[in-house]
């Protein structure tokens, strides 16, 4: 894909962020039908159509530079957003290799990787980074391998160690969470980590998801979409900094809702890692304002219905209580009641 990489986007303060018409059309609307409920909506992470966000394993888009910059700002203030337990070093190298191989293969104009035995040279042209290092020797990189590579990738990354029939959250870079704290959850089992999610436990979603992931195979990654809403295009909606962004929710009015309220979609990918047998969980985040989303007539109708009929427990869990009605009311005139075509494509 031939994105023009924006150089001056911000995800805080003046919130200088927007989607180009091409970025809007490739936005992964999370509502595949007019009603939304949890499901184990896992599918193989296979190459999607050209230009789609699923064309490659790790999507790099027009927001890349701003997102990497925002991550640096978060880490400077709160270094514990990156953590790795000591036994996760082998998994760290696995992730570095997966990301470098994929990004350099899929975006050769932006990233390059050359390997001479264990001597690797990585060149990130978008961020102006070039480093030569010895694969497997952490002392040859300026930071731990997972820290190093995830500062140069969009989305959050969590690494789960597999043992005793469970997956333990034991490393990660999480600067764009939808209200969950890796620092708090570090070391937890799969179900402990997902403990606060309402309804899904009763639907056995996590039993089935865990069983599925324990059997995840090398070179057969999977993906799913998840979503929430965010006021302002803010990536760091962490509980740590909630005192800063919580008040945003009370600022939404009928007049500003179309520009303030954003649908936030997470493309969640899961990869088995080759040496460590750990599982990488990637959470790639896409933000779109209600005004941008409504430029696609099908999406305006679909989103209106899904939000209007959302289960009350999910309204609460996703933090929408204060402004959901404003969004629904703004979208209502755009919904003439006509049917929507199946799937989430723009039509």
């Amino acid at each position, binding site marked *: 894909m031939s994105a023009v990489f924006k150089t001056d986007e911000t995800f805080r303060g003046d919130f200088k962020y927007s989607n180009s018409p091409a970025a809007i059309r490739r936005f992964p609307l999370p509502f595949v039908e007019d009603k939304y409920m949890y499901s184990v909506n896992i599918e193989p992470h296979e190459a999607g159509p050209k230009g789609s966000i699923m064309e490659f394993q790790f999507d790099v888009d027009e927001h890349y530079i701003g997102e990497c910059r925002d991550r640096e700002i978060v880490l400077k203030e709160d270094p514990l957003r990156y953590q790795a337990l000591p036994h996760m070093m082998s998994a760290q190298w696995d992730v570095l290799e997966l990301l470098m191989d994929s990004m350099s293969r899929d975006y050769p104009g932006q990233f390059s990787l050359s390997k001479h035995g264990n001597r690797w040279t990585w060149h990130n042209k978008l961020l102006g980074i070039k480093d030569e290092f010895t694969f497997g020797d952490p002392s040859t990189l300026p930071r731990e391998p997972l820290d190093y590579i995830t500062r140069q990738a969009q989305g959050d990354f969590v690494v789960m160690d597999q043992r005793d029939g469970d997956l333990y959250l034991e490393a990660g870079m999480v600067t764009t969470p939808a209200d969950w*704290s890796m620092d*708090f959850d570090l070391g937890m089992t799969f*179900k402990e980590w997902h*403990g*606060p999610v309402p309804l899904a436990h009763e639907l056995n979603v996590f039993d089935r998801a865990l069983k599925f992931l324990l059997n995840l195979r090398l070179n057969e990654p999977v993906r799913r979409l998840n979503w929430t809403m965010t006021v302002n295009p803010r990536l760091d909606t962490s*509980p*740590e900094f*909630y005192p800063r962004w919580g*008040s945003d*929710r009370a600022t939404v009015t009928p007049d500003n809702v179309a520009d303030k309220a954003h649908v936030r979609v997470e493309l969640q990918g899961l990869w088995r890692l080759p040496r460590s047998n750990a599982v990488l969980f990637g959470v790639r985040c896409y933000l779109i304002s209600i005004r941008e989303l409504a430029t696609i007539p099908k999406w305006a109708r679909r989103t209106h219905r899904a939000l209007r009929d959302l289960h009350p427990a999910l309204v609460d869990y996703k933090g929408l209580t204060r402004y959901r009605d404003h969004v629904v009311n703004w979208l209502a005139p755009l919904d003439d009641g006509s049917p929507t075509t199946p799937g989430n494509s723009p039509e």
Partner: protein
Amino acid sequence: MLIRGIKSKPVYTPLAPDLGGRTHLMVGFGVGAEPLARLIADCALAGVKKSSRQLLYVTDKSASPEMREAMQNADVEQVRLFSDSASLLTQFEAILQAATMGTRLYVSGPEAFMGLVMRIADRFNLNRDEIRAEECGSPARRVHCIHCRAATEDVTTNIVQCVGCQRWLVVRDHYSRRLAAYMGVMIDAEVPGELPPIEEVFV
């Protein structure tokens, strides 16, 4: 109260002698004396050697004088009594440092105390099947402030003021073994000063 509904809180096997163990390390606080006294009697019945039994106990007023005396004179190789949990935990850590394979841990007391013991056990990689635990006494919570990372002890209310940053925190039903605490999140971040009624819930 939602104790059973909390998915992140571990569930342990109640206290009973584990005959596969070679050292039986018993750790208790206050009212935890009662299950421990029962355990010690069961150990004797089951033929667990006295020389393999050790007891660490915080003498707290939540236990009756009879129970405290029972702990003092417990039928074990060595009894160590403490006046607060901090000094017990220091000693406990030192014992685990020197512990050998075959150590079985038995813990009894209020949940906040158990959490602190378990956190140390986790650091020494004791497996779940090497630990037996019985909760009794106060369900007061230890609360980790997600904003400033301070721990507020003995929380019995739904909302509590953080000892570190003074923010008012709502106590979420989400528990971290690594931090031995529940998550506390600012309650009035959306509209400052908008606090729901404060109620005694963990009592």
